[in-house]
Each structure stands twice: as C-alpha cells, then as structure tokens.
C-alpha cells in the first residue's frame, strides 16, 4: 500500500509543526533578544528627497540645529496639495562626529515649522546590531554568581538524596509488603504537587510560628521559637528548600526506578539468591548495575529540572535573600521590576546551555564507564 | 466458489525475501496446511492472503477475483489469529457478531448466526460474558466461532492451537477438523507441528526459506518426501539418511551400503545413471525396516547402541558404517545394546537422494512439485 508510507508522517505533522513553532521559533527569538540591540537612527539625505544618498545617521532624541528648510508641495490622493517641509539639520552622531543632511518633517520634532532654529530627532529606521551588552550585564550582576552557586548547591544536595530515597521506596514497594499498592499511591502523591505548594507546605513547618517550633516549644525543648528563615541563616534556608525538593520530586525518580526494577527479570534476583548473595550484595551487584539505564534517565531528567527550581525558593525564602537562576530570569523580565527581557533571555540561554552540558557530561561519563568495564573483562 | 490461487508471490522485508516466488492453489472445501520450521514464511504468506501486508509481486486470486490489491475486508475471508485477538471490551456475543455487524447484517440474522456458531463450539451459554472471564480454550472457541459466523467460505488460521495445553490441543484438533469439514469451508491452516499437519490436512504445503518445497497429501509427504529436508522435518523420529554409493551392475544399478547392495526400483535407474560412482543418500523411515535376529543375505547387519522402550514400540538406535540409524520395532522384539541385528530394506520404502542437493531421485518428485 503506497499510502501507508505517508500515513505516519501525516499523523505526525501537526504535532511536529506545533513543536517547531513553539520551540524552534522562540529559541531563535531568544537568541536575537540575548545578543542584539535594536536602535532607531535617522538617515540624513544629501538632497531633500527620500531616495537621495545618505550623508550620515543620527540617533533618536538627538538635538539638532536647523540650517536650512525647504517647502515642497505634497500631492494628496484627492488631487489637492499641502505644504511639506524638508530641513537641513546638523547634529552629533554616535561616533561623536558632526554630520549634516536633509530630513523630512516627519522624522523630527520642531516647534515651529517655519521659524524654529532647533529640533529633535523623533523618527528613523530601526536597525538591529549585535552586542554582548546583555551578556555582560548578566555576568557583572552581583546576584549572578550567587544565583549560580545556590542553584548548583541545591542540585548537589538534592539529587543524591533523592536517588537514595527513591531506591529505598522502590525496593520497599518491590518487596510486596501488604498494602503495597496503597504505599505506591502515597509515594506517588507528590508527583501531582507543584513546587509552589510544596514550598508553602514546608514553609508552614519551618516558619517562626510553624509546626516545628510549636512542637519544640510544647515539648519544652526550647523556650522561644527559633527563627529558621532569616538572612543570617542561609544554611537553614538551603536545608528547608532541600527538604521540600526531596519531598516533592523524589516520586518521579521512584516511578522511574520502580519501572526499571520491574523490567529486571525475576530470574536474575533469584539466581543471586540461590548463589548466596545477601540482600545488600544483590542490590550492589545485580540490581544497581541492571538499573543503570533507568537511573541515568532519571538523573538527566532531575538535573534539567533542578535548573528550573523556582517557586519553592520564593515560597520559602521570598526570593530576595536567596536567589536562583530562574528567579533571576523572572526578575529581569518582570515589567514591575527590571523590565529587561534581553537580560532575561541571556539567563534563559545560560540555563539551557548549562543543563545541556551537564546532561551530555553524564551521558559521556556513563558511556566511558561502560567502556572501561567492558575492556576490563 | 471459494478457491484460492496464489501466483508467483514474492514478499520482501528490506533485502530479506520472506516469500520466494510461491505459487499454489487451494481448492474449494479443502483443508490445506502450511507447515514449516519457524521463520520460513508461513505467517507472512497467510497474512498476504488475508491482505494484512501487500505482496511485492505476484497475484492472489480468491474465488476467481484478483484480490492482490484489495483491503482485507474486501476479500471475503475470515481468520483465526494466533493470540485469538478477541476484543476485550466486547462481550462474547458482540465478538462473534463483529464481522456480521460490520457487514450491517439484519439483527435477526446476526442473532441466529451467532447462536449457531456458538452452539457449534459449545459456548452458547457464555455469550453474555466478557472474554477476560474465560479460559484460553474458551477464547479459542470464540475466535473460531467469530471466524465461522461470517460464513465467508474461507477461514485462515495461524497456529490457532499453539496456545493451548497438550490435551486440549488434541481435543480441539479433532473437533476443528470435523467442524470445518462439515461446514465445507476452505481452510488454510498454519502450523509448525507436523503431527497436527498430518492429522488435519487434506494436503500439506511444506515450506522452507520462503519456498514451498512439497505440496501433497499427508501420506505422500510422509512416504515420498521430495528431499532430505522434508523427510527430516516430518515424522518422529525423522527419516534416516544413510550414505551409499552408486554402482553399475550390468544393465542396471545398485547402491552399495558398505558391503551390502540395495537394488533400487526400475524407475529410479535413469536418475541413478547420472550419479554413477558417486555418493547417494538413502532415506528410510524407522518403521519401514524389517529387523531380524538372524543373518540373511538380503539384510544388513547393524550394531545396537541404545534401546528405548516406548510402550507401543521399541526404538533402537544402531550403527551402520559411519551412520546412525533409528529403527522402530515391535515391543516384543527384545534386544539389548551391543547386540547385532539384521535389517531388511523393502524396495518400495527406500528413497534415494542426491548427496549434493538432497533432492529425491525419483520420477514422482517431478509430479509432486507440479
């Protein structure tokens, strides 16, 4: 059937087109935003006509002196005419040089068309020029390095703990304890919980008048509530974010690990048992090696997601004392604050490059490790 | 008319040829079995007939109509799938009625035909159930009922019994055969179980590597295999193959097996003439030899290695020169390992085959293939 060859492509086209529209196009736009600047300049003409050669260019808002003017008659669609002025103006361009040339009345603001001696450039053509200005702006921003280090620190603290916890959960579920389907549901609950909600949940526990302090004060351990969340207590704030993220995002790792475990044929484990491997030995020598592909997928996924950590941080710390990359992106973009999408785009690009690089690094690391074990045997 | 004609069918998967220029005709009301080892292309051929995968070249004609490029539903066939493909979201009744509903048959007719089909397969009490509540054997019955309910006259079956346990398989085998014969449907039945093939088929098409090697009645395929492969594939134990040598003996030819000479029937002599002084394969079935405890000039002495008492017969494994031979004997024929016995080879039970190609050297070979 000839037609069958086209069917899959036909079925895929809408989705692929949609994804291209919403991934590729914005990416090119982001690139433009990050690396270019748009300026409007007015080209001055040698003669008082649009088609004449340019003699120089003036930036918007430049103050100019009017040296000469010329009144032309513009023909209107209805056949009548109306006066239209061209001015010979002189001003200082971006390079600091004095230039002069003709400009039409539409491109300048002039108090009185017939008498004023000065004017201001108000129109021109948009030109786009490449610049590292926005990149520099990000790099020199004093919060940039703290955003990176906090993001990375969170990643380093959260991911290993998540993996250990996820593997424990998976093994518990795999051991078929009574009610394991209920436990699976419970462990999976955080899968549907947003990082904003998770942040508020853990904020409720650690805030000054929160549950932890309530417990400690009621138990008589301390007299006055301890203030975990304050500027002098960065390490506590980090810890709370780490807890919240472990609490929230371990589920996804758990699900990946469990399905990886289910894919391991029971024979392997039983063989291990028959040959006298203890629980720990089975974990170390059979389960983990066979689980490696799943773990790798989970690791990459978690890493990329770790760079997007956002609402938890804001919910717990307010986002001012402690900042992360995505928060900086938002602050730069936010019309109510810096209102600079270009720098925000630089941040976004930075996040993408770093998460991509780390994912590639993982894949390389796992592969070279594979090759090492292969050549060793 | 429900005759199926396949002409020069070729099907390729990439560079691999799964069906290699197959031509065959299935007569009306015939039960044809496609038999062959795993991967030989049986399923591929059956699916091509069903229209579930187009041929690369060749034609398929069903009931005189060229259906090569038609969709499955336009071919007037029905099918029993290997895993039954009973729709789990439909009750048994709706499953059996599916084909009729698709044809927009009137309600009364659907009701009647479904009930008939269900009765024939003894599942009339289960029409209200969902397939998930039924055993493998019962699902198999639904699949068959669905196939016969449409009364298309042609039923294709791909190893329909392979998922059943041995006992049930035996039972269903007999039941299916009588049922399909009674209904008079043309059946193509795929299996790699040669006993199933022997017991059910009116004719058997033995396939290998995408080719049909032999298409014949079961007894013919068994007694007169066209080549070493067919002989070896069909029968338990498989046909014995011994290495002999052709010698001229006056006007005729003899085949020497060590010191012993076999005299082939006259019609093989022309073929043997071409093989003069060359090695030749002697094929003989285990139960076709006459074992004797005393020497005789027309019998070969062999040394017994193993004796397997199988109840209905004794299976002996013996050595004859370089070759091993299996002999099945009456259970009363008591011998033990190490003894020597003498075997007589009845002239009409011996097949001679080309040592290089494995093809039988006989006149009827050509006939069988035609």
């Amino acid at each position, binding site marked *: 059937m000839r037609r069958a060859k086209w069917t899959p492509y036909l*079925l*895929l086209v*809408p989705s692929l087109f949609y994804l291209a*529209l*919403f*991934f590729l196009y*914005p990416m090119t*736009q*982001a690139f433009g*935003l990050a690396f270019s600047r748009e300026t409007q300049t007015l080209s001055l003409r040698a003669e008082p006509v649009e088609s004449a050669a340019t003699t120089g260019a003036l930036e918007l808002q430049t103050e100019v002196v009017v040296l000469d003017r010329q009144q032309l008659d513009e023909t209107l669609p209805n056949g009548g005419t109306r006066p239209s002025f061209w001015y010979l103006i002189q001003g200082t361009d971006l390079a600091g040089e004095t230039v002069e040339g003709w400009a039409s009345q539409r491109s300048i603001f002039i108090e009185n068309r017939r008498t004023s001696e000065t004017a201001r450039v108000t129109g021109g053509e948009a030109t786009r020029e490449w610049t590292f200005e926005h990149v520099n702006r990000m790099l020199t921003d004093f919060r940039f390095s703290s955003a990176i280090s906090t993001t990375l620190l969170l990643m380093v603290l959260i991911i290993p703990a998540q993996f250990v*916890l996820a593997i424990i959960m998976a093994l*518990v579920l795999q051991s078929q*304890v009574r009610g*394991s389907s209920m*436990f699976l*549901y419970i462990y*999976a*609950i*955080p*899968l*549907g*919980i*947003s990082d*904003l*909600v998770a942040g*508020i949940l*853990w904020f*409720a526990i650690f805030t000054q*008048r929160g*549950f932890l302090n309530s*417990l400690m*004060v009621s138990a008589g351990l301390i007299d006055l*509530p301890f203030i975990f969340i304050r500027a002098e207590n960065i390490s506590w704030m980090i810890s709370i974010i780490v807890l919240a993220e472990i609490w929230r995002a371990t589920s996804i790792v758990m*699900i*990946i690990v469990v*399905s990886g475990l289910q894919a391991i044929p029971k024979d392997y484990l039983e063989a291990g048992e028959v040959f006298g491997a203890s629980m720990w030995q089975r974990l170390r020598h059979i389960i983990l090696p066979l689980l490696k*592909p799943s773990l790798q*997928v989970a690791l990459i996924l978690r890493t990329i997601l770790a*760079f*997007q950590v*956002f609402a938890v941080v804001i*919910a717990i710390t307010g986002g001012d004392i402690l900042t992360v990359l995505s928060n900086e992106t*938002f602050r730069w*973009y936010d*019309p109510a604050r810096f209102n600079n999408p270009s720098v925000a*785009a630089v*941040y976004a690009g930075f*996040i*993408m490059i770093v998460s991509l690089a780390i994912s590639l690094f993982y894949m390389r690391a796992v592969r070279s490790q594979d090759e090492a074990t292969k050549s060793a045997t | 008319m429900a005759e199926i004609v396949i002409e020069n069918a070729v099907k390729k998967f990439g560079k691999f040829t799964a069906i290699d220029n197959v031509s065959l005709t299935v007569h009306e009301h015939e039960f044809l079995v496609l038999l062959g080892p795993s991967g030989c292309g049986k399923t591929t051929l059956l699916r091509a007939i069903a229209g*579930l995968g187009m041929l690369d070249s060749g034609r398929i004609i069903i009931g005189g109509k060229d259906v090569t490029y038609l*969709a*499955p*539903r336009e071919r007037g*066939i029905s099918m029993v799938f290997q*895993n039954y493909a009973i*729709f*789990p*979201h439909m009750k048994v009744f709706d499953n059996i009625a599916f084909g009729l509903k*698709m044809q927009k048959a009137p309600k009364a007719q659907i009701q009647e035909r479904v009930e008939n089909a269900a009765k024939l397969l003894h599942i009339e009490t289960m029409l209200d159930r969902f397939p998930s509540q039924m055993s493998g054997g019962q699902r198999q019955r639904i699949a068959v009922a*669905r196939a016969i309910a449409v009364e298309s006259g042609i039923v294709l079956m791909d190893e329909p019994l392979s998922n059943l346990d041995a006992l049930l398989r035996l039972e269903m085998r007999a039941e299916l055969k009588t049922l399909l014969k009674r209904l008079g449907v043309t059946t193509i039945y795929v299996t790699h179980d040669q006993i199933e093939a022997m017991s059910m088929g009116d004719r058997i098409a033995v396939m290998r590597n995408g080719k049909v090697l032999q298409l014949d009645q079961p007894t013919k395929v068994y007694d007169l295999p066209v080549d070493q492969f067919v002989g070896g594939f069909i029968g338990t134990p498989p046909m014995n193959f011994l290495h002999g040598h052709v010698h001229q003996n006056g006007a005729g030819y003899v085949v020497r097996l060590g010191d012993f000479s076999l005299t082939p029937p006259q019609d093989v002599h022309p073929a043997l003439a071409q093989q003069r002084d060359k090695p030749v394969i002697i094929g003989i079935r285990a139960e076709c030899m006459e074992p004797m405890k005393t020497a005789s000039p027309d019998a070969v002495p062999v040394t017994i290695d193993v004796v397997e008492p199988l109840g209905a017969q004794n299976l002996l494994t013996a050595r004859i020169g370089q070759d091993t031979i299996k002999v099945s004997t009456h259970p009363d024929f008591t011998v033990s390992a190490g003894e020597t016995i003498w075997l007589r080879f009845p002239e009409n039970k011996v097949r001679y085959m080309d040592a290089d190609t494995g093809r039988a050297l006989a006149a009827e070979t050509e006939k069988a293939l035609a």
Partner: protein
Amino acid sequence: MSAETFSNAPVSVAQAQAWDAQRRRARIQLRLRRAGVYVVAVALAVWILLPIWLIANMAFSTPQDVRAFPKSFFPNPISLESISFFLNAQGIIPSTGNSIFVAIVTVVLSTILAVPAGYAIARYVFRGRDAIRLVMLSVRAFPIVVLAVPLAVIFLQLGIFDQPFTLALMHTALTLPTTILVISSVFASVPFEFEEAAQVFGCTPLQAFFQVVLPLALPGIAASAILTFVLSWNEVFAAILLTLSNRTLPAHILYNLDKSSDPFKFASAFVMLVPSLIFIFFIRRYLFNMWGQINK
C-alpha cells in the same frame, strides 16, 4: 526421589531439637525482616503524608488558630473560615477560573495533537521514527524558563499577551512531548492483532481504529489527559511571565505571596493541592505507563 529419603530414619532427640530451634530462628528472622520493611514503608508514608496533613489541618482551622502559637496538630474547632476567606479574597475566583480554562484548553489541544502522533509512533515503522522519539524524550524536560521569555516577547509583539488562551498554547507545547510518548505507549499496549482482526472482519482502517483501538486506549488516554491537566494546573513560571492581569491561580498566589497572610497562604496551598491528590489517585495505575516507558 526414592522412598528412602522420607523413611523414618532414627533421628536423635538432640538433633531434632537443634533442627527445631533452627527453624524457629529462621522464622523469627523472616518475620523481623518483614516487619522491618513494613516499618520503613510506613515511615516513608508518614514522611509524605505529614506535610499534607499539616496543611489540611491549617486549612480547616480558624484564622485565629492558624496564627496561634504553638500551633495545634489537629483542627480544633474544624472551620471553613480560612478557606472561605481565601476563596473570597480578591482575584482568587477569576484566577481559579483562568487556571481551569487554561488547563482544559491545554488538555484538549494536546490530546487532539498527540493522539494521531502517538498512534503513528506506536504503529508504524518509518524512517525517522527513532529520531522523533528521541526529540520527544529530550524536549520533554526542556527548560520552561528558556521558552517563556521569548514567547512572552513574541506574544507581546503579536498583541496576544496576557490572555489565558495563549498561556494554554504555551502549556500545550510544554506537555505535548510527554503526552505523545504516553499516548503512544497506550496504543502500543493495544495488540496490533486486534486491529488486523477488525479489518479482516470488515472494518476500514479508520473504523478499526474507532471500533477497537480507541475504546481500549480510552482509559489510558484519559489518564494522560489528567496528567496534562495536573501539569498545566501546577505550572507557574510560564504562567507568571505570560500573564499580567489575567493570572492563573498559582501565578496569582506566587506573585502576591509576600503580601499574603498565613491563613491565606495555607488555604491556598490546600486548594491547589486537592485536585492533584484526586487526579493522581485516578491515574495511579498508569503512572508507570507514563514515566516507566522512558527507559526504553
């Protein structure tokens, strides 16, 4: 096995006692191990459930109790005051409406797009199939941050900024790769034989799809739709960038978080959490279908 093995060979009393003791020890060990696993299982469950309990507790306490210190671990008295205070706060009802609208549009759009695509990936072998799967896998974790900024600018230029509908377009893009993968695994779990059987018995390919494949895939597709709904309902970064006055619920809450009182915050967390809890319950059977298959 010969009969001798089971005969009553004389066994000394001491030996019998030793065997007995050994068996008892082994049994106790087994029980202990089971109990150990159970304790771990329960501890992990408590770890997950406790914060949820506490926030529910807060949501059902009076605002006075929420502000009290030390706090009670049980709502006493149970009151809907905090929740009603939250729901009646300015902007909550409209932003909840926006959230639901965005989520529903996202679900509809991404399902409509993903069903054919998922079917193609599950059923056909074609050039570029693996490449497409790989693309889906990799863009699934694509940083939202990266897309949200340029899209916001594009939408501004196009004059469709600050509209829930455009946010839904963005959410569709974010969830589409996952939805396609999930739906393709759902279709892959419907045996192809069913479809062939339907065709043999008189269906056109399209009829076979609607009569046989779709009914069987429907629960899975519904689960995927629910997952999509939850993803969209929870998403906050794109929401906060792409909307200004028409915020979704999480975006509205996040943006006003520093001005919010504790009762408001806690009630909001509870309200945002409940749909997720319910939905995850309904799709729990499909979780592996959704995330498990990414290993392949």
